[in-house]
């Protein structure tokens, strides 16, 4: 955090000055470790074993927050009899289909109630929900239209508040983690038991009524074939300790880009519509009602999905969207499986995807398996690159690594390339959503120079020109385009669209065109339009709330009048849980929101994340649905059961509980199960340039004996497009390097400031050598293991140059998020510079031959 979010880290240091203990868990010693009380180096790729060990400690030593978990989590819920854990089936859960490499999650559900997920893989439930509800909708044909969502089994799940029922979540959890002992943590992670116990006690001792512990993470947790389960492991621990929805608690995603939070809220992602409404998958005869029936929850705010979706369709298609035509629901293109950026690369290589826009992104060095990215681009008809400078993704046809090796010739590459220079943040109006879900408006200071333009300008005018060209078309495929509301006001000499007009559409408006103030006003009858329901209120009263800048010094610690946080300007989500079931703060020290008996309302320092007038002792009437079905203690209002999920009955592809699996490429066997890797990890179709390596005890695994991880530095930004062209930053970090321990340097003859060549089954790179005690060799299962650190900012262009670490990475993905595993790999390292030309290719081929790698290696279940 001190490296990559230095200014945010000032608050960690403020907390430390007030007595907080700071623990840093990272394979490397960094600027964060230097300021932490405890640094715990561990083997990259073993965090679930580590976190599972802490969960086990908390459960075995009764350090969990009992009142919290009984009231606010699903700990008391009883599971179905047919559920089997990884402890029963040696590393897989019940419902595993080895042929399809998927899980059927029906046995993961609660006894007596089937729930839908608030996020994640909601389509998992489609068949069951639509089939089971189809009979109902047929019985009430015509009347189901306009209803507020699917009514599923109306009962309450079976609960055991004593937490003793052998099939209750709490007991299942206890059994699942029983083998995650300090000794096992030592064998798997390489963390000594004393150090591990110290961490457990610091965390457990700093949680409860009076104290809270926060976890902060970044892509060191997400970029794994089990990335979602890493976050889930932290969620299990934080829920057990009562650290969610409370000040000083939480699991904080430290996001690395100015608006990466915004990019998922208002997504440019294949599987989502704005506000986390899923993109529809292709199903037989699916209309708006069946979609909502399948995707919405019965209880909580997701039960209102129809209102959110209809309002979005009205924002997109305006007057063309009517109740008679299902509000143009049919205009939405349908998914068939995953269409993530990595499948797109495959589709480019196979010649199915022919046109590509890169809008401020540099996959030629920044995405996993950079070579595959370039092969994809070399097979396009056309490519549009919008960026500040000539990044590698714009110039690979001229000077990419494949030109050097002779595998490609510029004259043979048919891709037509358009480079359009981009405007800077100082040259346009707009909002970023920061890592705390807070929108902040940046104002235009000057006009963009020359041909530089904002992406708002590019998208708006591209759409305008296409619509003009197709205006006379009668082809039904052009209807969604021609019916689109696309009449934004423009201004200035460049005809820049008015960004605030777009924000106003995102916020939404009623039938009279007046701005909405809250998503609770959204209707499913077409009388409201809203581009992103969770952002509703950001333009309340026609005022740009994201541009509010009341100085922090003139506000309390919540600073609610600086910017605007979704939803409803709440700064801490699920903050009903900061009060006890009776509505009183768990302690004065940790008071945030509470029930005011006299005024009969929730009040406090933050905006309560709860119906403001719903008393703590409210119990919903039988058969209630939606928001009305939430009780006064259902603090987790977006969840289908109102509870924090220690155990996930639906919504996750790879299991209801986090389980340790080894990374795709690992020098070690899985010590917990004979199941080596995540059985449902996502592997792309075999390709000669995306080979995997043998792992564990498999022959050939010794060819790649070192663990490798990638990371970022303070002085650079991701793939370097915004930092390698800045002289100051180039001077601070002038070239690519690798970090190795003195012991590894001696073993492999590596010299400080000299060169090293690093090889994987995918590629070879060279890097300057930094020999440093910051890389600590570990003892894992009795074996000495070295880790190699690779900052990944580089490519050949710009002032600060070097090979791209992503030449080494592969495309094995987390099955939920489709994110690549670039934080834990295995590789070899040797002294000296890498070969040039054809010899570089031959070196990689020789390694593959030596390790016995073919298209099946590493693809076992």
């Amino acid at each position, binding site marked *: 955090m001190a490296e990559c979010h230095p200014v945010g880290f*000032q608050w960690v240091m403020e907390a430390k000055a007030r007595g907080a203990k700071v623990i840093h868990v990272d394979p490397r010693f960094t600027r964060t470790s230097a300021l932490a009380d405890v640094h715990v180096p561990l083997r990259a790729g073993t965090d679930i074993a580590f976190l599972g060990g802490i969960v086990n400690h908390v459960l075995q030593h009764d350090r969990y927050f009992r009142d919290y978990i009984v009231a606010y989590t699903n700990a008391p819920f009883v599971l179905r009899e047919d559920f089997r854990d990884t402890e029963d089936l040696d590393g897989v859960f019940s419902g595993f289909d080895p042929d399809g490499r998927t899980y059927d999650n029906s046995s993961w559900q609660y006894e007596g109630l089937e729930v839908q997920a608030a996020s994640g893989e909601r389509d998992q439930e489609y068949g069951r929900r639509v089939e089971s509800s189809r009979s109902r909708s047929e019985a009430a044909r015509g009347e189901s239209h306009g209803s507020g969502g699917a009514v599923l089994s109306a009962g309450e799940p079976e609960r055991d508040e004593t937490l003793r029922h052998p099939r209750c979540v709490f007991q299942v959890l206890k059994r699942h983690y029983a083998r995650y002992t300090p000794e096992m943590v030592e064998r798997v992670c390489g963390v000594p038991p004393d150090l591990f116990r110290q961490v457990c006690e610091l965390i457990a001792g700093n949680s409860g009524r009076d104290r809270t512990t926060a976890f902060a993470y970044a892509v060191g947790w997400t970029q794994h074939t089990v990335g979602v389960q890493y976050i889930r492991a932290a969620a299990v621990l934080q829920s057990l300790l009562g650290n969610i929805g409370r000040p000083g608690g939480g699991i904080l995603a430290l*996001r690395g880009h100015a608006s*990466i939070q915004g990019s998922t809220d208002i997504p440019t992602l294949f599987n989502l519509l704005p506000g986390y409404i899923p993109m529809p998958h292709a199903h037989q005869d699916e209309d708006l009602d069946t979609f909502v029936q399948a995707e919405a929850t019965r209880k909580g705010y997701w039960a209102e999905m129809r209102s959110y979706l209809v309002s979005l369709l009205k924002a997109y298609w305006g007057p063309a969207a009517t109740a008679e035509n299902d509000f143009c629901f049919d205009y939405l293109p349908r998914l068939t499986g995953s269409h993530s950026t990595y499948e797109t690369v495959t589709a480019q290589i196979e010649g199915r995807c022919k046109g590509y*826009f*890169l809008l401020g992104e540099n996959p030629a060095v920044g995405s996993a398996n950079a070579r595959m990215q370039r092969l994809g681009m070399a097979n396009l008809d056309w490519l549009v690159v919008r960026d500040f400078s000539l990044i590698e993704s714009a110039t690979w046809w001229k000077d990419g690594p494949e030109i050097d090796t002779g595998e490609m010739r510029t004259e043979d590459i048919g*891709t037509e390339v358009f480079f*359009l220079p981009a405007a800077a943040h100082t040259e346009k109006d707009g909002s970023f959503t920061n890592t705390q879900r807070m929108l902040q408006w940046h104002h235009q*200071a000057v006009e963009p120079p020359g041909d530089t333009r904002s992406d708002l300008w590019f998208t708006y005018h591209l759409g305008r020109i296409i619509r003009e060209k197709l205006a006379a078309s009668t082809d039904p495929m052009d209807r969604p385009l021609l019916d689109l509301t696309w009449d934004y006001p423009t201004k200035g000499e460049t005809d820049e669209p008015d960004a605030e007009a777009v924000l106003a559409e995102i916020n939404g408006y009623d039938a009279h065109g007046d701005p909405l103030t809250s998503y609770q006003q959204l209707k499913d009858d077409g009388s409201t339009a809203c581009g992103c329901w969770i952002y509703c209120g950001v333009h309340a009263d026609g005022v740009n709330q994201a541009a509010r800048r009341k100085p922090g010094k003139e506000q309390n610690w919540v600073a609610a009048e600086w910017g605007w946080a979704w939803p409803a300007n709440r700064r801490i989500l699920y903050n009903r849980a900061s009060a006890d079931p009776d509505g009183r703060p768990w302690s004065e020290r940790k008071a945030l929101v509470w029930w005011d008996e006299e005024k009969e309302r929730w009040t406090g320092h933050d905006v309560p994340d709860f119906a403001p007038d719903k008393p703590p002792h409210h119990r919903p009437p039988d058969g209630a649905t939606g928001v009305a079905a939430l009780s006064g203690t259902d603090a987790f209002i977006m969840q289908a059961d109102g509870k924090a999920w220690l155990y996930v009955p639906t919504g996750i592809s790879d299991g209801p509980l986090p389980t340790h699996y080894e990374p795709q490429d690992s020098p070690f066997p899985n010590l917990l199960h004979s199941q080596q890797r995540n059985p449902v990890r996502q592997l792309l179709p075999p390709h000669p340039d995306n080979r995997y390596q043998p792992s564990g005890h498999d022959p050939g695994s010794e060819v790649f004996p070192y663990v490798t991880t990638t990371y970022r530095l303070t002085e650079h*930004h991701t793939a370097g497009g915004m930092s390698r062209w800045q002289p100051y930053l180039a001077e601070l970090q002038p070239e690519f390097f690798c970090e190795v321990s003195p012991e590894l340097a001696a073993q492999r003859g590596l010299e400080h400031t000299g060169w090293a060549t690093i090889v994987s089954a995918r590629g070879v790179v060279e890097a300057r050598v930094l020999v440093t005690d910051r890389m600590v060799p570990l003892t894992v299962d009795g074996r000495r293991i070295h880790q190699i650190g690779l900052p990944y900012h580089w490519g050949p262009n710009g002032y600060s140059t070097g090979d791209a670490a992503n030449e080494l990475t592969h495309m094995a993905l987390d099955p939920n998020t489709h994110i690549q595993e670039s934080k834990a790999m295995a590789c070899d390292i040797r002294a000296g510079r890498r070969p040039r030309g054809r010899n570089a290719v031959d070196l990689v081929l020789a390694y593959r031959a030596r390790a016995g790698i073919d298209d099946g290696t590493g693809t076992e279940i």
Partner: protein
Amino acid sequence: MGVRTWIDSWPVYRQLKGVDPLGRGAAAKSRDSGRLAPRVQTADRVVKSVCPYCAVGCGQNVYVEDGRVTQIEGDPDSPVSRGRLCPKGSASLQLTTGGAREHQVLYRRPHGTEWERLDLATAMDMIADRVIRTRRDGWQWDAGGLRTRRTLGIASLGGATLDNEENYLIKKLFTALGAVQIENQARV
């Protein structure tokens, strides 16, 4: 130079006699540094902004003079950052005004070996034509008997420094075009 001025210009004397006994402020100032003024002093206006690098969201004050950005500093009003910027944020003046930024549209024709210049309006028109053609070529009304109403010909990958408003228009336009392979750094 009079004796008085000469003695006054002696830092040790000023340190002993003045209000700066530790010699870290006024006493240590030379005549040259005394004449220096902050570079932002002559700015015509200060525009409120946000750092475009990581997602902490540090406040920035953008100083503008004669229609040009002359300096970018941390905004002390921000409850997030309290006026601080990291090395990247501090270098954002170079990011926005540096000489490494391209200001012109460039075009590489199929099999071409060098960049060519292209007028922006022409480039936009050419891109629109290619979108229309590729969308049509990759169009799919159904797949395996299920309605899909989409094109698999076009894909997009965006960075996560895009504004919310930009992402909104990108998703809206591409969805209306029937493109589904719309992705972002948030995946990576």
